[in-house]
């Protein structure tokens, strides 16, 4: 079966809620039924075939071509299957994702992978603020899975993160890892201000020396045994993180945030 391919006809005027097009929701539907699904766009509801040309039939391999930054909630609560986005994705990409994988060739908007539970998200471009974070008012962000961003990410990446990996090949904005409860955020590029602000536990793994708050204490240089295992787990990724020459086990360890419980750590390559 050929992958179900939705090609966006025109740039949308209003933002479009793509959440009805998660793979598991399409499993039992015929192509005509999928074409008749209505998507919220502003105050209007638009049929899928009004917005997209439809090709292929395998709804468990969804391809969204000519994608636009106004397509929100792509892969919301995805529970298996794969979604490939050719172009940009809007806000709330992979929100609450439970299983499966999503790949975006362009950029993603705000709150990508927020409250993600499991699965794999790959963004080839940049990601907006609150990557892998909790929704406003919620206390638990990403709970599992892996996010790979090949470009830069905005502010508050991993805010309230609980578990899982966020891998950033580019730079991270301010407040990266803020209020983290656990998990790992790795940043190959530069990080912004207030790194790990109020983090409780978890690891921020950095390739470059950050500007650290006074509430992070230097614990010295160490060789840590878990790092080779962590890097080995990245070997299958289509990423610079898979490159053996990028791995290391010798780090400067900073403990923090001491204004919180202080069980988190910033590990900087030395």
């Amino acid at each position, binding site marked *: 079966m050929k992958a179900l391919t939705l090609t966006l006809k025109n740039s949308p005027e209003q933002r479009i809620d793509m959440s009805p097009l998660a793979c598991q929701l399409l499993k039992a539907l015929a192509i005509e039924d999928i074409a008749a699904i209505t998507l919220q766009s502003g105050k209007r509801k638009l049929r899928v075939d009004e917005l997209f040309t439809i090709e292929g039939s395998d709804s468990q391999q969804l391809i969204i071509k000519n994608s636009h930054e106004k397509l929100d909630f792509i892969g919301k609560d995805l529970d298996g299957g794969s979604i490939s986005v050719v172009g940009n994705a809007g806000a709330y990409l992979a929100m609450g994702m439970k299983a499966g994988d999503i790949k975006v060739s362009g950029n993603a908007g705000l709150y990508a992978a927020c409250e993600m539970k499991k699965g794999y998200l790959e963004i080839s471009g940049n990601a907006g603020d609150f990557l892998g974070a909790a929704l406003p008012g919620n206390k638990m962000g990403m709970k599992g899975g892996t996010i790979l961003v090949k470009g830069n990410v905005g502010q508050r990446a991993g805010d309230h993160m609980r578990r899982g990996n966020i891998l950033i090949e580019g730079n991270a904005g301010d407040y990266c890892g803020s209020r983290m409860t656990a998990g790992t955020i790795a940043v190959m590029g530069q990080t912004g201000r207030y790194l790990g602000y109020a983090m409780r*536990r978890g690891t921020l793994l950095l390739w470059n020396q950050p500007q650290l708050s006074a509430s992070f204490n230097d614990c010295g240089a160490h060789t840590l045994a878990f790092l080779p295992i962590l890097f080995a787990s990245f070997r299958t990724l289509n990423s610079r993180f898979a490159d053996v020459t990028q791995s290391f086990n010798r780090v400067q360890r900073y403990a923090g945030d001491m204004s919180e419980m202080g069980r988190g750590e910033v590990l900087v390559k030395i």
Partner: protein
Amino acid sequence: MIINGVTIDATFAEAFPMKATRAIITAQNEKWAMISAQAMTGFATSVIACGCEGAIERVLEPSETPDGRPGVAVMIFAMGGKGLAKQLETRAGQCVLTSPTSALFAGIDGGIRIPLGKNLRYFGDGFQSSKLISGKRYWRIPVMDGEFLAEATTGQVDAIGGGNFLVLAKSQPQALAACEAAIEEMRKIPNVIMPFPGGVVRSGSKVGSKYKTLGASTNDAFCPTLKGATRTDLSPEIESVMEIVIDGLTKEDIDKAMRVGIQAVCDLGAENGIKRISAGNYGGKLGPFHFHLQEIMA
């Protein structure tokens, strides 16, 4: 059956079901991985009094270990899952956690999960942290030489304990030399351990004793100094008997280990004083697994 002048008795070794696990110990170098493994598997020759049977399975190349350092695989066998878990935890806590530069990993991925580093983490007094990597949880416990890394759990599987064969020789040095040759070959077989000192036991036992408090006592039928004093199983020229006990994950593993071990003994042959190969059994009443020597060597 006679191989190279050595008589293979028409008898069988009797073995019983056990629970087993494997752990991988790594360290800065093979020397320290081995020291830790030897400590962990010390006083683990027999379930009769040690609580478990354990030994080093083999040395691992850095490419075979989870953290890319030199390592040693150890296996521990016990009569029940609860006892196995307790032995594993106390031995890991006292012998691996304490050993410089060590790290501890699961050696069996399937099976029932039993704690490896899961409870050792409390030694960290709140400073411990964990990492969930590719579905496996690892505990990082701060210790004075750096950080002790231990996988949270390892696998417990059904196994077989008590496979054995006896080497009957004309002299004590000849019996020992034959057993050493057998052990050297048997250590190349995966999934088995020979838990006694150096893999060899000179005090094979029988079930029961004239003393009520003892569950096992010397196997007098195979004691050469009692040839004229008990119902002996030895011919006049036998002066020494030694036993090799094998615990393994499956019957096939023990079969294979017994075959290469007996073959190594037979290769030395009658000209080196080896007269017979026999095995210990309890009339088939104790264990459901029977390893018939002649079938194994056929």
